[in-house]
């Protein structure tokens, strides 16, 4: 196993401006962008967080360590980014506290970019959360973490196909060894600044009667809130009878 920090290929390439990077720890005031970090438990999300911010949050090999939100920041090319580490969750559809914290931030905190950390070894399982997040936000980056383990398990992922299917940029990392972090930062900044425009995947395989109901409802929502990005997701939640979303709709917090 490699233990030394491997210089990533991109650290020398034209895109990444290493001098422009400054890790800010918890001192992220007057930031230009808010970046949310979401993902399943046990995907090394906190390790990615630490690698980006230079902080040392505890990262237990145990699902559900980060119960409260942790915040940190970094500066890249004169722009300040505030990073919010959300609790690791399997989904955003249930009602546990962790999921509420994560979902509320994505929905009401309106991050400029959402970085979704996924375990490359268990992509299918992780996509459950990824696809849900892509219904909420359209500015996201998939961070395919634990690539070192995937390599050991002989798992090969075609990142270009994945990025095309998901409609968002995909960056492979091994956050433990700081591999891929420069590319991740570069991609975050490009999405934040609008250089990369995402066309997120929308959930397709729902049964026809539900799809019909969702279409009907989201049309009404779009009529009421023109230009809303996640009308489909709100429709999903309304159909589930989520009282929090109903409340938010009434108070206008959603727009």
């Amino acid at each position, binding site marked *: 196993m490699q233990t030394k920090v491997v210089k990533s290929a991109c650290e020398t390439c034209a895109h990444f401006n290493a001098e422009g990077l400054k890790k800010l720890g918890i001192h992220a005031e007057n930031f230009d962008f808010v970046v949310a970090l979401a993902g399943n438990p046990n995907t090394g999300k906190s390790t990615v967080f630490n690698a980006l911010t230079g902080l040392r949050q505890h990262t237990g090999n145990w699902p559900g360590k980060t119960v409260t939100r942790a915040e940190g920041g970094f500066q890249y090319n004169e722009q300040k980014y505030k990073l919010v580490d959300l609790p690791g969750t399997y*989904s955003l*559809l*249930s*009602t546990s506290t962790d999921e509420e914290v994560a979902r509320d931030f994505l929905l009401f905190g309106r991050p400029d970019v959402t970085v979704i950390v996924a375990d490359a070894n268990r992509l*299918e*399982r992780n996509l*459950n959360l990824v696809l849900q997040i892509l219904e909420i936000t359209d500015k996201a980056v998939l961070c395919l973490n634990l690539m070192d383990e995937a390599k050991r398990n002989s798992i090969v992922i075609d990142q270009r196909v994945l990025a095309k299917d998901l409609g968002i940029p995909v960056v492979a990392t091994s956050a433990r060894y700081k591999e891929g972090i420069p590319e991740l930062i570069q991609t975050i900044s490009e999405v934040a600044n609008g250089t990369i425009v995402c066309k997120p995947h929308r959930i397709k395989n729902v049964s026809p009667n539900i799809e019909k109901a969702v279409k009907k409802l989201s049309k009404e929502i779009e009529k009421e809130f023109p230009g809303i990005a996640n009308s489909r997701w709100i429709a999903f939640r309304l159909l589930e009878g989520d*009282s929090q979303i*109903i409340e938010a709709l009434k108070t206008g917090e959603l727009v």
Partner: protein
Amino acid sequence: MNDYNPISALIIFFGIAILLFLLFRPTKGWFWLLQKNFKSNEKVIIEDILKQLYHFENSGNKVDTRTLVEVLNFKNKRIVEAIKKMSINDLVYFDKDALKLTEEGHEYALRIIRVHRLWERYLADKTGFHKNEWHDRAERMEHKLSHDETNKLASQLGNPKFDPHGDPIPTKTGKIADIEGVELPRLPVNSIARITHIEDEPEVIYKQILAENIHIGSLLKVVENNNTRIVFHSEGEEFVLAPIVASNLTVLPIEKEVVIEENIARLSGLQENEMAEIIGISKESRGESRRRLLDLGFVKGSKIKIDLLNPLGEPHAYLVKGTSIALRKDQASKILIKKSEHAD
């Protein structure tokens, strides 16, 4: 402290302990009984009478004061007093001997039923109380919730239309949906239907149904239907019910051609080194625990096998979608699977 004696100290201690036990033991403690007696004031009696009248009228039976005394667990005198008061307040009237609800009384009764059924829904969806307790708890709660509280509860629950037994919940404005479907004994052999309602009275029969693994929402297929017994398959199990019990089940026949899987097994029956595919989750698992299972990847079509056996017998760890997840036996028994022919 010279006259102290450990035996008398112990006797006093156990005396107090026994007294506390008698006072506060669950449900039969004197304190709870007293509290219940104290609380069964006029309002409770009136509301219970209204509810009974509503149910009797719905089933087309006539009610007089004597029937009420038989059905309700209150003193004779108090019931008579309550009825007197109710007729003064225009909630009920006498049609010869029979007691009937006025329009106002009808509305009031629906309000009580709405609270009762909403509260059962709440207990089923948002708490961990066992289903045996839902009814009694709702019975107590229905007299407590105010109009506004009820509406708030309803919207928190997403304005449900049916309670966990499949009974319709009256709306704010007193509208009430119909239970769709027919009584199970009227279903011909080989028809497929979905269970929509389980009647919770009389209690003797309801308890029998509860003891079986029969759940609202699950599909069933009738395999035998005659005067002595009704046999049907549901979620991989065979049930044999007497017609009188079966008639407490309301089912909605399904016209469309649905595939009802044969040879369904339960995940709890999976052996080491066997492979299986998940068919679904039994309707018995509901609310938060059902959602959790789904989120963890226990969805239709997932391949599954045992990853680890437990030194204490349970839980086992199952390998599903690349991750090892431990489930207890009672959870695993709610996951319906189809074993694969070949292990791969």
